[in-house]
């Protein structure tokens, strides 16, 4: 079987946990099938991370260095991945599912004539098929979906993107053989122009990486509520998320929306504060290890997914909780 390839774009000089999760799973499957586990690292200076991916089982590490790949435009990224696929001939290509993957997966599929299996919760191989389970209907159910592996020699790998939190990160030594791929991109062929990148407030914790997330919903009505959310978050160095109600109202930045439209997160601990638990919100957070919900409505649907449901007014519970946690932490 041709190699399995995990594509890892390096943005802002960081490599996300979700990428290592996908890599760990892909390496496991490559070992099972007796094929090579390759990694494609793309970015301004991708070699910074070749050691890290080697220690997570990469046999070969392909490096494409180009500062344009840091620019959030899909064309260079797409061209670079197609060029690499053309020289590596993988049978399976895996990605962590995030907005930059979502931006290119369809185009890659169409450019290659390849099947694409986006946003899967698990994937494995049966004979000549890649099989996945993926949440559908606002993550109310799981669909079993299959795609055929290409005949060897065809340039049509199966493409899979994986939801964060679906697999554990596993360290294992891989050969880590480095290969630099030359990528000449003519900026003149760029049809899009990036005018500006508006970053969410600097210094906030990345939701994709956070161990703990404190998420606010419409029950958080005012600055005092936001202050309590921030204080609880600061005790754990937690990421702050929000329901659509509060990103829509402008109370929180749109980039912290959690759910079907927003992000899929998978922290160790998730506080849902004043959030009703609409299916579209739950779709983004039900992969959390432990969920604590605070809501004054004892029948709020969020309690159906919460491990610990605190029934009451968040303006009374949060100050008490902050105090108790401070006391325990000493």
């Amino acid at each position, binding site marked *: 079987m041709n190699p399995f390839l995990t594509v890892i774009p390096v*943005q802002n000089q960081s490599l996300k946990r979700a990428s290592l999760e996908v890599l760990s799973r892909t390496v496991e499957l490559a070992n099972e099938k007796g094929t090579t586990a390759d990694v494609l690292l793309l970015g301004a200076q991708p070699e910074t991370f070749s050691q890290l991916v080697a220690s997570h089982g990469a046999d070969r590490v392909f490096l494409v260095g180009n500062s344009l790949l840091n620019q959030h435009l*899909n064309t260079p990224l797409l061209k670079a991945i197609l060029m690499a696929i053309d020289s590596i001939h993988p049978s399976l290509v895996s990605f962590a599912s995030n*907005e*930059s993957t*979502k*931006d*290119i*997966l*369809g*185009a*890659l*599929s*169409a*450019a290659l004539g390849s*099947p*694409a*299996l*986006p*946003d899967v919760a698990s994937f494995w191989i049966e004979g000549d098929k890649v099989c996945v*389970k993926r949440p*559908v*209907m*606002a*993550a*109310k159910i799981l669909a*079993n*979906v*299959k*795609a055929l592996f290409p005949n060897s020699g065809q340039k049509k790998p199966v493409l899979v993107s994986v939801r964060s939190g679906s697999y554990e990160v596993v360290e294992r030594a891989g050969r880590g053989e480095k290969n630099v791929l030359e990528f000449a991109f003519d900026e003149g062929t760029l*049809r899009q*122009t*990036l*005018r500006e*990148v*508006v970053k*969410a407030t600097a210094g906030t914790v990345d939701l994709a990486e956070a*161990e703990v997330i404190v998420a606010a919903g419409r029950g958080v009505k005012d600055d005092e509520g936001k202050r309590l959310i921030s204080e609880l978050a600061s005790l754990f160095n937690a990421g702050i998320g929000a329901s659509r109600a509060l990103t*829509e109202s402008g109370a929180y930045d*749109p980039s912290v*929306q959690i759910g*079907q*439209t927003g992000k899929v997160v998978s922290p*160790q*601990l998730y506080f849902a504060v004043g959030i009703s638990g609409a*299916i579209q919100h739950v779709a983004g957070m*039900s992969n959390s290890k*432990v*969920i604590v919900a605070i809501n004054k409505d004892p029948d709020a649907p969020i309690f*159906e997914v*919460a*491990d*610990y*449901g*605190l*029934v*009451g007014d968040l303006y*009374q519970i949060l100050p008490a909780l902050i*105090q*108790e*946690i401070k006391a325990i932490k000493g």
Partner: protein
Amino acid sequence: MKFFVCIKQVPDVYAPLQIRDGEIHQDSDRQVLNAYDASAVEEALVLTEKHGGRVDVILAGPEKAHETIRKALAMGAEEGIHLQTESTSGQDSASYAHLLATFVKEKEFDVLSFGKQAQDTDSGLTGAMVAQLLDLPYTTNAVGLAIEGDHLIVTRQGDIGQEIIALPTPCVVTCSNDMNDPRIPTLKGIMGSKRKPVEVVQASSLHGTSLASGFTGEALTHTTSFESMPARKAGEKLQGEADEIARQVAKILSEKTGVFS
């Protein structure tokens, strides 16, 4: 500007559903306009009301999907194109993308817009597939659109922030529902929609035409069955005095999770 908006009819995700023998059963056969596509239609209407132009919608689906085209016409789109398929089963984003691209290839337009994903499959592939098949500049997950001369200015929600990207027309964009609140059709709109033209094209007449990459209209992925989501169990509910339940949960969390260290 001339907009084509691709719209999909999807089952109502709020309607109760059961799974029997690996298939989804919904008592209500209620089908709706995909929420993300409603936002794409709304935005196109707002932009053409401001800058001039027209909005037509394209839908690939079975006969029943006609009602969803009417919905978009009632919102204000001028004409509908119905790429009529036998049924929805066996189709995937790739097969729909092939149909849409084959139809649109011969047409003139400035912006071809999509929803960022279909609410029923949550795939989010079709827009970028069609852009690639037609070799058009594109971007995804737009939360705001504007027109400047012959450029579409897209505010895109990325992973860490928002990117503002200028695309020369013709171009492709996929829309988030975060960009607007779609209008509810007025009675006048609904009445008027009945007189608006809907062109019906048999999907079979578009099949087989091979586009650049070898997409032929065949589905490339196959959904074999559905199953229930492994449910999270509702856990403990703590009720009573705020101080007391805060104390209890803090203690439990410090013992059961590793996040206090």
